[in-house]
């Protein structure tokens, strides 16, 4: 499966709250970051979690966010960043 996004591209995390097992933390949903690495295809953990094959594999990306964008009341340094690995089904072009 070819990766939809490339290193350096800006991506926005989907605003979605499905009830089952997901691997995208709550605090990045709806937030915009930048792809720093395309980690390759991995079996989909949202399927593996229910005893299924996890195929087709999904591209997994390393995405960097400005931490101050993630929490309104963030008290740390302005240049702080947060890195999260996110599967392609959670990412959109902004």
């Amino acid at each position: 499966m070819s990766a939809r996004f490339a290193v350096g591209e800006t991506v926005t995390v989907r605003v979605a709250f499905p009830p089952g097992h997901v691997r995208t933390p709550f605090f990045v949903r709806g937030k915009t970051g930048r792809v720093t690495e395309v980690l390759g295809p991995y079996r989909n953990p949202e399927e593996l979690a229910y005893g299924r094959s996890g195929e087709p594999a999904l591209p997994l990306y390393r995405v960097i966010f400005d931490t101050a964008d993630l929490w309104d009341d963030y008290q740390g340094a302005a240049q702080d960043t947060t890195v999260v690995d996110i599967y392609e089904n959670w990412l959109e072009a902004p």
Partner: protein
Amino acid sequence: MSNERSEDGLLRRHHDMGGLPAGPVERNEHDYAPWEKRVDAILRLLADPKRGVLTVDELRRGIEELGPGAYDEMSYYERWIASVTNNLLEKGVITVDELGRRMAEVSAAWPAGTAEKS
């Protein structure tokens, strides 16, 4: 399901607590009780690619489904064994009857306060 409304009204699942206030991080290495090491070993054997009985994804899903009360009250390895147990029951690897009988045997053999050999 254990979805909760966050401050801004969005649905957050209980376990998904990254960034919430949680107090200081315990940085010391913990001593593990023999039963905790055994739980760890059970999971590793079940998830071993040769056996492939359980994936860590299923383990995590099972922990998330314990619900907010149990999730907060149970210790780390208590959550693991609860999830492993539920997964093995769902998959038909063990039965409720079998498990209940075996637990009764173990309780009889190891009365409360008996130290487990490591």
